[in-house]
């Protein structure tokens, strides 16, 4: 019950944030780019023609009326029309979103599976060789431009060695699995389509690792420092004194408490990975939101850019809400306030 109340409270607290996000995106999309009417009509427009279109588009209304219209549009799923694809932006987002979600979730999975054990090992062998190794690895990961790592992967594994695919989501000739979630690996598993599953999974490897490289560094560093703190506490010494095996003490006792700060960081990491998707997807021609946004930038397709921005912000705060709730569920010491 407590958990429900907590979630409810958090959702209420999200309302001002949502309003703020809409004001900010409204400001960016409607106030910064100069006069949209002039942009649409081009350099040869007459003042009368511009005035007419301004009136028609409602640009002469007071700002709060325009804002009201903008928000009303968002609530009805109207994010404008992409000037490049000539489709409603919302339809485009629907089409590209599952690919980004799949890639980001895959990258997060790699991050957790590698980052947390690396951090634990690093902390348990503090200042010894494994620790030095992981620390350097994490440092490089955080300082490295992911899109550059992607280029190197492409060069090595796709162009030189030819062992992994370097673009797209499926091999040529493999048809996508029946649409359920839009995430090919998941849909293929659900429909038992192993050919598509294998192909989709192989295509995820390079972009997934690329996107995970940065976040692995972040999670490893956090796990390490959190574990170091926990490992000094009395109850760990007790567990060791009672003769618990090293692994049992580490993973059974220490990690349980050391993992808490790491979980909060996961939300931020997810945001980082989502943001990084813009770069990584464009390296691997991954047909997701990032590639869509970059395309939109190239063709000055502004409604599309704003649609992606809005969707990613919504996703980011939702994920943080989920993670905070998880945090409260896992840690009984917190009483939902």
């Amino acid at each position, binding site marked *: 019950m407590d958990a429900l109340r907590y979630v409810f409270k958090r959702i209420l607290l999200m309302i001002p*944030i949502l309003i703020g996000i809409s004001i900010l995106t409204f400001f960016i999309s409607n106030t910064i780019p100069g006069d949209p009417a002039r942009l649409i009509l081009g350099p040869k427009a007459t003042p009368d023609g511009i005035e007419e279109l301004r009136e028609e588009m409602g640009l002469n209304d007071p700002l709060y009326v325009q804002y009201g219209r903008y928000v009303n549009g968002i609530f009805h799923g109207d994010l404008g029309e992409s000037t490049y694809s000539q489709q409603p932006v919302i339809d485009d987002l629907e089409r590209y979103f599952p690919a980004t979600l799949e890639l980001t979730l895959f990258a997060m999975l790699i991050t957790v599976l590698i980052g947390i054990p690396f951090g634990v090992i690093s902390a348990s062998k503090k200042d010894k060789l494994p620790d030095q190794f992981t620390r350097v690895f994490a440092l490089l990961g955080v*300082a*490295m*431009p992911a899109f550059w790592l992607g280029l190197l992967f492409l060069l090595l594994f796709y162009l030189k060695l030819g062992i992994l695919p370097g673009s797209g989501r499926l091999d040529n000739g493999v048809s996508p699995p029946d649409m359920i979630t839009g995430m090919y690996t998941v849909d293929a598993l659900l429909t038992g389509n192993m050919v598509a599953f294998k192909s989709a999974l192989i295509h995820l490897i390079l972009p997934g690792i690329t996107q995970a490289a940065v976040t692995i560094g972040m999670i490893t560093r956090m796990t390490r420092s959190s574990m170091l703190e926990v490992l000094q506490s009395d109850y760990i010494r007790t567990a060791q004194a009672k003769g618990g095996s090293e692994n049992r003490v580490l993973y059974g006792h220490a990690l349980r408490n050391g993992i808490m700060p790491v979980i909060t960081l996961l939300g931020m990491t997810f945001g980082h990975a989502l943001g990084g998707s*813009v770069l990584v997807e464009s390296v691997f021609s991954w047909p997701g939101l990032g590639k869509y946004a970059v395309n939109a*930038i190239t063709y000055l397709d502004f409604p599309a*850019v704003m649609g992606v*921005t809005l969707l990613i912000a919504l996703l*980011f705060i939702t994920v943080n809400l989920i993670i905070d709730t998880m945090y409260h569920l896992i840690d009984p010491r917190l009483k939902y306030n």
Partner: protein
Amino acid sequence: MVRRMINSPLTILGLVLVLLIIITAIFAPVIATHNPTEVNLLSKLEGPSGEHFFGTDEVGRDIFSRIVYGTRISLKIGLLVVLISFPIGTILGAIAGYIGGRIDQIIMRATDIFLSFPGIILAMSIAAALGPSIENVLLALAATWWPWYTRIVRSSVLSLKNSEFIEASRALGANPFRILFKEVIPNAIAPASIQASLDLGFVILAAAGLSFIGLGAQPPSPEWGAMLSSSREIIRDAWWAATFPGIAILITVLGFNLMGDGLRDVLDPKQR
């Protein structure tokens, strides 16, 4: 304090790298072996050699010289973004923490809103609205970066606010603005300035990313992200074009990170 810094080999490495980058930027015309924008179709796509240390690109420009000149662009962006966003963030954070009440609420909600976008996405949309250019990327990054400083400074101000020396100035009847600028901010600024030195690297990384997707520096500018972006066309024939600019970014970001980490260890040992 200095000894502690010198004792850490990684901090030294960071300082050396940063120094190296600054020297490269200042003496770029001396260090570069070629004109960074000079096109020479006779020597296009040549691999690394004694003549062209890092090879040449699709129109025969010397990649080494371009990377050397690119240091200036990256360093300039990093410094300007931090120099714009740091004071704004600091002042807002100090006001929020010191005055409190409704003003605090408003400022902090504003940071919440800015931080509910992944940084690069917000910067991307602002830069896209302003139009692709390096100056606009700079503005866009500054607009996304300040909330971090606001939060850090606010929390240091909150812990300082009721300390005795502030209390004393207040008792002496000093003007609140004087207290804010002469007493509170100077004492609350250390953690945020550590963050700023770390951020120099991250700003450079973000700017390279935005240039990579076509928002920042436009070709033929020797900006590292833009160079990597155009290297994609020739990656099959010229691995060097896709490799060296990335190493330059990595070294620069690493340098500032190590330096920032070292500063933190010295100035703020609790955070270790």
